[in-house]
Structure formats: structure tokens, C-alpha cells
């Protein structure tokens, strides 16, 4: 198990002279360097365009949150647990935004036991409500990595083979209390093709290193809160599918939204199937989504029909994932001086193609396909949120 050469630790390398980054200009001001650093910070994003790699679109992710005594530490304000839960709420929202047909479940571990906070579900509201309630809970005892992984595995092993099964552990303690050999569990996880990633809040723990290395996940330790957020956001994007996951055709239903009004003769108020287990007030509603196979009613999509087992989605849910499959190429960065702009009425125009603002930054970005020029803000906006180039849309005829 220890064949892989260990990476050199940071304290083993030579020291870096970080003060040499700052350079003063003739008048003694640091402004140029500071602007440069800010500009680089805007552009800092890991651009791993996967291109032709297959991504796991339907994801079943379990998040294991450590609730042991070390989470009361106040190095993250106000304490680690509150900070983690707040970031988890943001993570859940972003996750369902980018992966609308996936599911998330939350497990907490403390006192040498593991407990399921929420089951695997596709609706963000339940998870966010549960996370909000957990802020008041006490952090006591030691976590148990084995028990929590086992609990997650019990549910994940029944999931169909074409989905991507993942576990994300937020681990802050340096110890774990396990009833059995965790290396056996790691072998079982490997056999079930479950990918485990860990975000450490304290320091690197060897068993986590081995766990993530064997199952193919990633292990990172946070530096501060913004780094924590960045690491969490890395898990929002769908990971490359492992070669062993099978591809199959999944049968799905696309129900129509029926809005019946009181004046309709046939409209009868009815219960929605999603309210069967909820303790909230049972709502009798007139309209809703009817499963095309068994006519059971639901108020929201996406959902798995409790009666007949058909997955119900709407077409926009699938469309949300399209930008992962056809990602936009990165734009090429060129200095502003090299771009000549168009000349209209003998004046030189340098405008951003998308927002029509004047180009004032140090460098401009050119789309390689349509050769149109964009400013740095539009480049960030287009690649993060918009996912389509307005220049390319004007030239090609197909979507």
C-alpha cells in the first residue's frame, strides 16, 4: 500500500523570498504591483477544461461533517462548526444549481458514532433546513471515520451503476475511533467504486491520505476560510467519470405542470405525494405535476416518484447541465497595445464586443473561434455564468 513515493513536504523545500514579488517604481510607489496582483487574482481560476472527457452527470454525494470536540475550536470564526455549516448551505445551493439531477445526503459524526442528518434527496430545501438546525448542537467526543463511511456506503451500494457515487468528508479532528480495520473498508469502497474526498481543517492525517489515494479522490487541508470555500466549490463541478461506470439509458418522465383554476369543473384539490412523510401542514392543492406513468401528484421537480419509481424531471433541468458537456474554450489573453480596434470615421475604437465598454485593462481577451475581443470582466462573466460567446453565436448557424 505504500509504494507511491511521498510528496516532498513544504518544510522540506528551500524557503521562498516572498518579499521579492513587490517591486517599487521610480517614485517609490507600489501601485503598479498592487494592480498587477489584483488583476492576477481576478484571473486566478484553475482552467481545467476537460474537453472530451466523460463527466459523471448524475451524482449521489454524501457529505460527512465532523461534529467532534475539535470543531469547537475558534480558528474559524465564530467556531469551526458554524462556519462549516454556513459554507455547507452555500455549497448545497451551488451544487443543485450545477447538477440539477443529482442528490445529496448529510451525515454527522460525533461521540464515536455516526448519524444521518438527511437522506439522499434532490431537493435543496430539506438539507438547508436541517443544516440550520444543527448549528445549535453540541460538539462532543471523537469522530468515527469507519462508522460514518460505513453508514454512507450502506445507502450508496444500492445505487445504480451509471451514477457517480461520491463521499466528501469534512474532517477536523486528528484522531478517529474505529471498531474495525479501516483498510478493509477502504478495499470495500474501492470495490463498490465509491470516490472519497477529504477536506481537512486541522492538518494532514495519514489515514485520510491513503483513503483518498486508494479511492481516487482528492485531499486538501484548508489555510483559511476563503480557501475552505474555494475547496468546497471545487467539488461542485461534476468530476470526470471513472472508466468503470457504465453508461445506460435512464428512463425518465417529463410531467406537465397543470394549473387548474377554481372555475374548472373537473378540478379537485388533492394531496401531493411529497407530503406523505413531511410533518408540515398537508396542503391540498389544485395544480401540480402528474407522473405520466401512475398519475401521482407532486409539487416540485426533480423527484423520484414514490409510487412507480420513475424519475421525474423537466427539460430545463437537463439543459442546466449542458454547459458541462460542451464547455466554452478559454479566451486568449493579449496585451492591450497589440489590439488595434476598428476604425470608424477615422477614429480608433476599442470596445468590448459584449458589454460595449471601452477597453481599459492591461490585456484583452480574444475568442479563438470568432476572433472578437472582450474585456476582463466580460471574460469572467462569460466563463463563469453565461457559458456562451456572443461573437460565436453571430457567426455560426447551429446551436
Amino acid at each position, binding site marked *: 500500500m505504500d509504494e507511491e513515493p511521498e510528496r516532498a513536504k513544504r518544510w522540506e523545500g528551500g524557503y521562498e523570498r516572498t518579499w521579492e514579488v513587490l517591486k517599487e517604481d521610480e517614485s517609490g510607489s507600489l501601485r503598479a504591483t498592487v494592480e498587477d496582483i489584483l488583476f492576477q487574482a481576478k484571473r486566478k481560476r484553475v482552467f481545467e477544461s476537460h474537453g472530451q472527457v466523460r463527466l459523471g452527470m448524475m451524482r449521489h454525494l454524501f457529505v460527512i461533517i465532523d461534529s467532534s470536540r475539535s470543531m469547537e475550536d475558534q480558528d474559524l470564526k465564530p467556531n469551526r462548526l458554524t462556519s462549516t455549516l454556513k459554507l455547507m448551505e452555500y455549497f448545497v445551493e451551488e451544487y443543485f444549481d450545477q447538477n440539477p439531477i443529482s442528490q445529496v445526503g448529510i451525515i454527522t459524526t460525533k461521540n464515536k458514532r455516526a448519524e444521518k442528518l438527511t437522506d439522499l434527496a434532490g431537493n435543496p430545501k430539506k438539507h438547508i433546513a436541517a443544516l440550520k438546525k444543527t448549528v445549535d448542537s453540541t460538539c462532543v467526543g471523537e469522530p468515527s471515520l469507519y462508522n460514518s463511511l460505513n453508514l454512507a456506503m450502506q445507502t450508496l451500494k444500492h445505487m445504480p451503476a451509471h451514477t457517480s457515487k461520491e463521499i466528501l468528508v469534512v474532517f477536523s479532528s486528528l484522531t478517529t475511533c474505529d471498531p474495525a480495520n479501516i483498510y478493509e473498508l477502504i478495499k470495500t469502497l474501492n470495490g463498490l467504486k465509491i470516490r472519497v474526498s477529504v477536506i481537512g481543517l486541522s492538518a494532514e492525517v495519514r489515514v485520510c491520505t491513503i483513503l483518498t489515494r486508494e479511492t481516487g479522490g482528492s485531499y486538501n487541508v484548508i489555510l483559511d476560510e476563503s480557501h475552505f470555500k474555494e475547496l468546497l466549490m471545487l467539488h461542485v463541478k461534476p468530476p470526470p467519470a471513472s472508466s468503470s461506470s457504465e*453508461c445506460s439509458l435512464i428512463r425518465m418522465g417529463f410531467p406537465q405542470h397543470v394549473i387548474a383554476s377554481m372555475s374548472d369543473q373537473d378540478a379537485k384539490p388533492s394531496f401531493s405525494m411529497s407530503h406523505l412523510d413531511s410533518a408540515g401542514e398537508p396542503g391540498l392543492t389544485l395544480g401540480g405535476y402528474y407522473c405520466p406513468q401512475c398519475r401521482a401528484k407532486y409539487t416540485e421537480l426533480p423527484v423520484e416518484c414514490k409510487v412507480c419509481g420513475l424519475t421525474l424531471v423537466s*427539460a430545463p433541468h437537463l439543459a442546466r447541465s449542458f454547459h458541462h458537456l460542451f464547455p466554452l474554450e478559454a479566451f486568449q489573453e493579449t496585451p492591450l497595445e497589440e489590439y488595434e480596434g476598428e476604425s470608424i470615421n477615422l477614429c480608433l475604437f476599442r470596445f468590448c464586443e459584449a458589454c460595449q465598454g471601452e477597453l481599459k485593462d492591461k490585456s484583452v481577451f480574444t475568442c479563438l473561434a470568432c476572433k472578437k475581443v472582450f474585456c476582463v470582466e466580460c471574460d469572467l462573466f462569460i466563463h463563469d455564468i453565461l457559458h456562451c460567446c456572443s461573437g460565436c*453565436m453571430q457567426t455560426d448557424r447551429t*446551436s
Partner: protein
Amino acid sequence: MASDDEINILVIVIDVNPIWWGQQAQREPQFTLSTCLDSLMVLANAHLVMSRTNKLAVIANLYQNSHFLYPSKQWKLGDEISTSSDGKYELLSVTNDLFAEEIKNLMDRTEVSGSQTESLLAVSLAKALCYIHRVSKDVQAGQDVKSRILVIKAAEDSTLQYMNFMNVIFAAQKKNILIDACVLDADSGLLQQACDITGGLYLRIPQKIALTQYLLWVFLPDADQRSQLLLPPPVHVDYRAACFCHRNLIEIGYVCSVCLSIFCNFSPICTTCETAFKMPLPQMAKTKKKKVKTAI
């Protein structure tokens, strides 16, 4: 009601497909492109007058190309603003003049080709979003920015732009930008979805001559004021998916787990990503072994 802390940005996207407008002028001579643009100018002026901090942009959409009518690039460099002679608020007269000049220039230099009867609005919407993004960044701290896009649609939808259109809709929803639609002729499924997802208003105008009325009564109030008005009810949006093989709307379909393309029938190979699927084997019934009784 309008305070200095709130900035309302309205971006109007007008579809100026020459073929549709040409046919329209022959059908109904009272309602042509110039009357439509007059109505738009009324709405634009009304919006600018509602509050000192309101901002406006107008984009014209011509087949696949889009062109900013206001604010225009030439205005920035060559400031030849004619001062108004009739005492009108100067911003309004400047806006109107520029608007008229730009649309004339645009129409002059466009070549009409008979095959382009559909309009692809995704380009203009994408540019509108980038413009709003830039303007939102330029405001001072403490000011709230509320923005919306009003689309005036004339010609028919084109199915070529489905993916780009959906990307634009999701981006607008993420940035809380409403997309309203004022449809002159045929219903547009894409715009209905856009209005439903972003929370905007979709209206198909029964009488085109009364465009000014509809614009001022329905589309001028911004999002906060809409809760106090009785507006046209939301339309029923068809969210069923179309299968990739026949383009029929289906209720139950098969989705490829790799590329998310939708099929109406089970097939062993996905046509989009060419992955072979596992075929579900028919269940083999177990035959009971009959014990042969040996004669004793």
C-alpha cells in the same frame, strides 16, 4: 418612491427582422416598424423620467446579429449633441435623436436575404446581460441595482439556438434579472420558458396598434410595483422535452447518462455520443429439475 439608492436598468431588445416587418406593413399599414419604434421611444422616455437614476439601453436584433442602438459607440467619441429647441428635457431629446439616427444607419447598411425569416434572440440577450453586468459593477457602494430585459418579438423562433438560449436564461436567473416578453405575432415557447424561469411577464398583444398602451401599462412598472397591479395571468408553459430523433414532445423518455440526450425509444447506441449501452437481458425462467423416479 424612487430613491437615490436604487438604480433600475431597463434593456429593450427589439426584433427588427426586415422580412417580417415588410410583410406586416402590407398586412396592416397602420402598424409599421416606425410606429413600433415610436411606441418604444415613448416607453424609453417614460422609463428615464420615472427616476433620475434609471438607466436605459436598446438593442436591435437582426437575424443573428445584434446592434446597440443606445448607448452607441459613436456618441462617446464625437460629442455632437444637438441642444433641444423646444424645451424638452435634454436627456430625452438626445436619446430620441440618437435612437432614430442609429436605426436609420442600421437599416441602410443591411442587406436583406429571403431565407432569413426567423430571429435568433440569444445573441442580443447575451450582450444585454454583459452590459448589465458591467453597469452593475460601476455603481457606487450602497446602491442597489435592479435590472430587467424587455424583449419585443416579431418574427418566429428558431430552434437552432436552444442551448445558447437556455444558458442565457439560467445566467439571468442567477443574477436576478427579469426577462419580460411582449410578443406581437406568434407565441414563442422559448420566451415563455424564459419568463417563467426568471419571473418576468409574458404577454401576447391582441391588437398591435395599441402597442403603446400595453407597453406603458404592463411593462413600465418595475418588479416591486408589479405586486400591486393586476397583470395578465401567467401562461401555461410546456416543459416537456423533445426527443432528439423525431423532435416530438414526449412524456416518458430515455436519457443517455453520458450526454443527456433524450430518446423516445430504447436503442443500443446513443446517436450523440456514440456510447454503447448495456442491454437489459430478458429474465430466464428457471426450469425445475424434475426428479426421475427410478422404479424400485
